[in-house]
C-alpha cells in the first residue's frame, strides 16, 4: 500500500469511528433526556420551564402547519382528479385525498415543517448558548443543562407534534374537499360518504402515533446538534443545517419503519382493506 492509500484508509477509518462515536453520544444524550424527563416530573418548577416551550412549539407553529396542510390537500386533489374522472370514479376522491393526508402527508409534512421552524431555532438557540459558555455556566452552577434546557424543549416537540398533525389533517382534508367540490364540481355528499368508508379511526391514530416519534426525533436531534456544536458563528450555522437535514432524513426513515409496522398491525387486526 502506498503512503497516500494508507493515509486515505486511515482517514476513512477515522471518519467511521467518529461517526460511531457521535451515534453513541446521541443515544446517550437521548437516554439522559429520558431519565431527566421522568425524574423531573415531580418538581413543579420544571413544569414552569415547559410552558414557554409549549407556547413556542405549539401556538407559534400553528399558522404554518395550517397553511402547509391546506396546500397539501389541495395539491393531491388537483393531481388526482382528472385521472379519477377519466374512469368515472371522481366521487371516490375523498377516500384518496383524506387517507393520504391523514396517514402519510399530514404527519410527515407537519414533522418536516416543525423540523424547519422549531428545529432550526432550537439548534441555533442551544448552539449560541454553547459557544457563549452559557451551558458551561449552568453546569458550573450545579444545574444540569439537559434537565434545564433540553427536556422542556424535547417534551414540547414530543407532545405537540401529534396535535399539530391533527390540525394539518384538518386543513388538508378541507383543502382537498374545496378543490374537488368547488373547483372541479364533485358532489359533496358522496365525497364525504366515501371518505367515511375509507378512513378509519386507526388511520387517524397512525398519524398521531407517528407524530410522537417525529416530534421526539426532531426535538432530540435539534437539541443534540446545538448542544455539541463547534465554536463560532460558522459552527452554529453548520449545526443548524445538519440538524435540519438529519431530522428530515430521520422523519422519513421513521415514517417508513412505522408505516410497515402499522400496516402489519392493521392487517393483523382487521385483515386486508380494499379502498376501491
Amino acid at each position, binding site marked *: 500500500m502506498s503512503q497516500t492509500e494508507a493515509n486515505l484508509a486511515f482517514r476513512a477509518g477515522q471518519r467511521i469511528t467518529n461517526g460511531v462515536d457521535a451515534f453513541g453520544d446521541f443515544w446517550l444524550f437521548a437516554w439522559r433526556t429520558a431519565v431527566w424527563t421522568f425524574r423531573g416530573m415531580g418538581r413543579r418548577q420544571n413544569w414552569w420551564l415547559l410552558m414557554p416551550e409549549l407556547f413556542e412549539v405549539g401556538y407559534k407553529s400553528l399558522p404554518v402547519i395550517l397553511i402547509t396542510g391546506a396546500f397539501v390537500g389541495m395539491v393531491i386533489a388537483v393531481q388526482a382528479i382528472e385521472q379519477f374522472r377519466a374512469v368515472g370514479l371522481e366521487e371516490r376522491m375523498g377516500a384518496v385525498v383524506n387517507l393520504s393526508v391523514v396517514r402519510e402527508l399530514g404527519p410527515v409534512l407537519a414533522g418536516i415543517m416543525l423540523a424547519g421552524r422549531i428545529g432550526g431555532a432550537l439548534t441555533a438557540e442551544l448552539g449560541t448558548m454553547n459557544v457563549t*459558555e452559557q451551558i*458551561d455556566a449552568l453546569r*458550573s*452552577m450545579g444545574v444540569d443543562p439537559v434537565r434545564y434546557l433540553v427536556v422542556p424543549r424535547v417534551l414540547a416537540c414530543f407532545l405537540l407534534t401529534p396535535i399539530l398533525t391533527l390540525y394539518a389533517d384538518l386543513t388538508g382534508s378541507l383543502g382537498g374537499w374545496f378543490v374537488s367540490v368547488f373547483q372541479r364540481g364533485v358532489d359533496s355528499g358522496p365525497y364525504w360518504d366515501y371518505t367515511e368508508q375509507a378512513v378509519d379511526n386507526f388511520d387517524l391514530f397512525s398519524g398521531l402515533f407517528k407524530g410522537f416519534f417525529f416530534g421526539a426525533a426532531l426535538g432530540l436531534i435539534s437539541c443534540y446538534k446545538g448542544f455539541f456544536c463547534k465554536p463560532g458563528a460558522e459552527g452554529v450555522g453548520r449545526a443548524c443545517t445538519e440538524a435540519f437535514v438529519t431530522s428530515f432524513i430521520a422523519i422519513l426513515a421513521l415514517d417508513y419503519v412505522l408505516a410497515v409496522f402499522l400496516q402489519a398491525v392493521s392487517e393483523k387486526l382487521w385483515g386486508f382493506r380494499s379502498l376501491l
Partner: protein
Amino acid sequence: MSTKPSDNGPIIELRKVSKRFGSLPVLDGVDLALLRGQTTVVIGESGTGKSVLLKHIVALLRPDGGEVYFRGERIDDKSEAQLVAARRRFGFLFQLSALFDSMTVAENIAFPITEHAACSKEEIDEIVAEKLRLVGLDGLQSRKPGELSGGQKKRVALARAIALNPEVVLYDEPTTGLDPVRADVINELILRLRRSLDVTSVVVTHDMTSAYKVADRIVMLQGGKVIADGTPEYFKTTKDARVRRFVDGKADAEDLSVLDM
C-alpha cells in the same frame, strides 16, 4: 464524611493533570496546590491552556490523566449529579460573561439561588440588590444583558458568581476586552471580594497590570506545564528569560520570524 477538610491544607489540588484535544496536548502533567484565602493568578500566552486549567477545577472538563481534588476530596471522577454539592461552593466568572440573555439582570443573579436555596421572593430580591451594590450596579435589575456594556456584563456576571457566597471564585480573563479604567474596577472588585467574603480566588489572565495588583501568588503556564511559580515580587525581578519575555511583553526573534515573508 470520611475526608474531613482541613483548614490549612490546599483547598484545590491538581495532580499530574493532563488534557489533550484531538492530537493537541494542552495540559501536560500540571501539579498545582492552591491555598485557602489566597488569590492565585495564572498567566501565560494565549492557547497555553489557562482556561482549560480553570475548567478542570470545577470539572467542567475532565482530565485525560491525573486527578483533581477539592477540599481533600477527589472530584474529577464524579458524575454531574454528584458534583452539584461541590459546585455550589464555586463561583465562575466566564470570559464572555455567559449571562443568560433571555433573563433580566435580576433573574440572572437570582438563578443560582432559586435553583439551590429555599428563599422567599423578598429574600431573593434582597440578595440580588446586595450583590449588585457590591459590584456597583444596583438599580439595573430589570435590564436585559443585551442592554449592558461589556464592563457592566462582567460585573453582573460577577454578582451572579458570588450569589451563593462561594468559597472559591474562578475568574476567566476578567479584564480582557475592557478599557484600562474598567479593568481596574474589576481588579478592585476582586480585591474587595477577597477582603469582604474571604474567598479563595483563581484568576486566569494575560494582563500583567491586573496580575500584579490582585495576586498573592503568580503561576506561569507554558507548553502545558508550570514553568514559574512565585510572588508578584519574584516575577518583577526574575532573570528567567521565558518569564521576562512574557511579563515585559517583548517578542523575540522567533516570534517575529512569522512576520517575514
